């Protein structure tokens, strides 16, 4: 199945463009980013529960999110400041994962109306350096490798005990 989300990351550049079309009116797409209750709902997944610690959706506002696993351990905490917020059109904000070596990134979200019922999100993310961008891009890839390793360890570990 083809993924609806496109990621454009040119070699040697320190930014990337994430685009996605939604089967939603642009007002609802925008609301998903500014309403704390809705943010918590779509940021959560079967492995992690998202919590909005702070979300002041306004110019010069700030936000902080965290995720916990099934055991209640914090697996992620991050946030940033909102530089500009134009309802239904644009959000410019910074983002930084706490305790990660990636540094802050600048995110420009452009909300575009396609038809009355469909919309498009253009997400431009700018990093401090090419190396930083590439490290962030490779994270899910590295996690995939780690998960494979953990799975092997689990299997081998359980065999040892038996």
């Amino acid at each position: 199945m083809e993924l609806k989300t496109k990621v454009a990351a040119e070699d040697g550049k320190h930014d990337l463009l994430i685009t996605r079309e939604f089967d939603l009116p642009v007002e609802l797409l925008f609301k998903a980013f500014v309403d704390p209750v809705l943010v918590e709902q779509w940021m959560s997944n079967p492995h992690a529960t998202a919590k909005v610690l702070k979300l002041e959706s306004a110019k010069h506002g700030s936000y902080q999110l965290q995720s916990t696993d099934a055991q209640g351990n914090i697996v992620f905490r991050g946030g940033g400041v909102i530089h500009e917020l134009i309802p239904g059109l644009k959000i410019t904000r910074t983002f930084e994962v706490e305790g990660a070596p990636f540094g802050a990134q600048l995110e420009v979200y452009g909300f575009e109306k396609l038809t009355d019922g469909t919309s498009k999100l253009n997400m431009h993310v700018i990093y401090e350096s090419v190396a930083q961008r590439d490290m962030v891009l490779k994270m899910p890839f590295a996690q995939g490798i780690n998960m494979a390793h953990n799975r092997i360890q689990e299997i081998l570990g359980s065999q040892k005990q038996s």
Partner: protein
Amino acid sequence: MNLRRDVFQAIADPTRRAILLLVASHSMTAGAIAANFDTARPTVSKHLQILTECELLAQEQTGREIYYSLNSEKMKEVADFIEPFRKMWDDQFNKLEEVMKKYKTKK
């Protein structure tokens, strides 16, 4: 022992990455591949077995020799390291769409 092999596991090892590079240009026998490494022949055989199991290598019998070549279709899955990143965002945005559709009908 029958571990399910996956491509991430296969390419996590530097020797296996080197083997993939070797056979990328032309198919080679196990002996010819092993000649490129200082490691023992059985170790190389084990690597070839893992790469074959996860379908990154294709085997072809020519007379008494088995030739290994790169399965480029499977390689495409891993060649692009951006794919897991894209998948992560796609999952997230699918969830967003689902949540907002429910929200819309509730109103």
